């Protein structure tokens, strides 16, 4: 009977739970879904680094491929990082196959901004020979199952995949001027900062819930995503319209985001330690 009510009047169904300060899947308003992360040994073997992240039912996989290219004329000592978020039609019925829709493009732009703002990878580190050769990191983030909170999962997957990347050493042969790639010698990527995203959904202009599922996102009147790094600095505050919030409410979101950052960092460190060969 409750299933009928849920289909016919989803908003009223949710309001009954929110009044009791909890949600239909049993979580508190400030509680995250179970987060798991799998690294390259199970994921993509052809990529230079990859990670699979599950946030409850939302599943996102990120593969990083490194290629060589000549740096741009105006920034001869910088490499490139090109993120791309794909929302294929298999992850949810709301996405059609064809050119990337608005949500995918906005998500790609968001990830590019996070990388840029947090300086997690300094582009100068990707340069091999000034003006001649630099690394290009193509980061493909593909959503396999969409159940809300895409941005958090994508940022986490990207961070995990980049931590996993092993770049082969490249030397430029003086005589021929060609590059020689040594696949036997690999060095990990230098990651300076670890940004973590925390998303909130705004209900009825007042209530803020953390880590919304797909159903909650549809019913919400707005969303906020906060990206913090380990020093407690804000890398990004992304509130694309939706219900207005006071400065104080925004402050609450930021404090919750900082706590979440610590939890996620601990999780990543634990997983990395478990796969590092002894």
């Amino acid at each position: 009977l409750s299933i009928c009510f849920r289909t016919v009047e989803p908003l009223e169904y949710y309001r009954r739970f929110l009044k009791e300060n909890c949600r239909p899947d049993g979580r508190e308003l400030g509680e995250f879904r179970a987060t798991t992360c799998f690294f390259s040994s199970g994921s993509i073997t052809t990529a230079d680094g990859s990670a699979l992240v599950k946030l409850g039912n939302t599943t996102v996989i990120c593969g990083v491929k490194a290629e060589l290219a000549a740096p741009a004329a105006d920034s001869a000592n910088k490499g490139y990082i090109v993120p791309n978020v794909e929302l294929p039609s298999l992850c949810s019925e709301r996405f059609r196959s064809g050119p990337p829709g608005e949500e995918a493009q906005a998500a790609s732009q968001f990830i590019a901004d996070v990388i840029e703002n947090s300086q997690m990878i300094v582009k100068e580190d990707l340069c091999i020979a000034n003006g001649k050769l630099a690394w290009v990191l193509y980061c493909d983030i593909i959503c396999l199952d969409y159940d809300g909170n895409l941005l958090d999962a994508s940022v986490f997957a990207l961070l995990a995949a980049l931590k996993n990347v092993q770049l082969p050493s490249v030397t430029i042969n003086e005589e021929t001027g060609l590059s020689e790639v040594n696949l036997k010698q690999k060095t990990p990527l230098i990651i300076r900062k670890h940004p973590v995203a925390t998303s909130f959904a705004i209900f009825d202009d007042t209530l803020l819930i953390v880590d919304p599922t797909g159903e909650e996102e549809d019913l919400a009147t707005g969303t906020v995503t906060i990206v913090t790094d380990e020093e407690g600095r804000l890398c990004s505050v992304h509130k694309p319209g939706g219900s207005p919030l006071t400065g104080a409410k925004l402050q609450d979101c930021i404090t919750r985001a900082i706590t979440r950052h610590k939890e996620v960092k601990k999780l990543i460190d634990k997983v990395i330690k478990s796969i590092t060969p002894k």
Partner: protein
Amino acid sequence: PPSSPCPGDTSVLAGLYGPAEAKLSKELPDRAALEVLLRPKVGLPGVLERSREQLLRQTCEAVVLGVLHPRTAITLVLQVLSDAGSLLSCCLNAACMGLLDAGLPLSSLFCGVTCALDPDGTIVLDPTTRQEQEARAVLSFAIDSRERKVLMATTKGSCSMEEMQQCLAAAQRAADTIFQFYRDSVRRRYSKS
């Protein structure tokens, strides 16, 4: 009808069409379907324009009373005429004035304010392109007219929590000037006719 506010030399032309009949694939049964198209000055719209369109669309959706016009389409077209910094807040202001000019039912007005944080910590409102590039962080807010709450927020670069709150407070104060400008423009327009 078009309208174009310009802080400094940045100018954006906004054209609003609607509420008009919507295509069957796009119509929503209980509210108006809002669409925003942002055209850059040169080149074709890319990923950056799409993400800005999403920001503008969701901000407008929060204020437009779409439930009064179900199954219709409201299209907002923004053309960038010149860009000398603070482009996003110029687009927001153009959008709001367009909505006002078209006479659409709104629950509140909104205005866009951009703040740039200098490397030494000073807050610069409505920065020029040069100031934006040299700044440590650039924050853009859309502030609503009722209670000066934050409708939209987007940041570039990193800053601390306190700095963000300071920028927000400065933006809320600056919003008063912009709302006064709206009031004066509307008064001027309707006093002639």
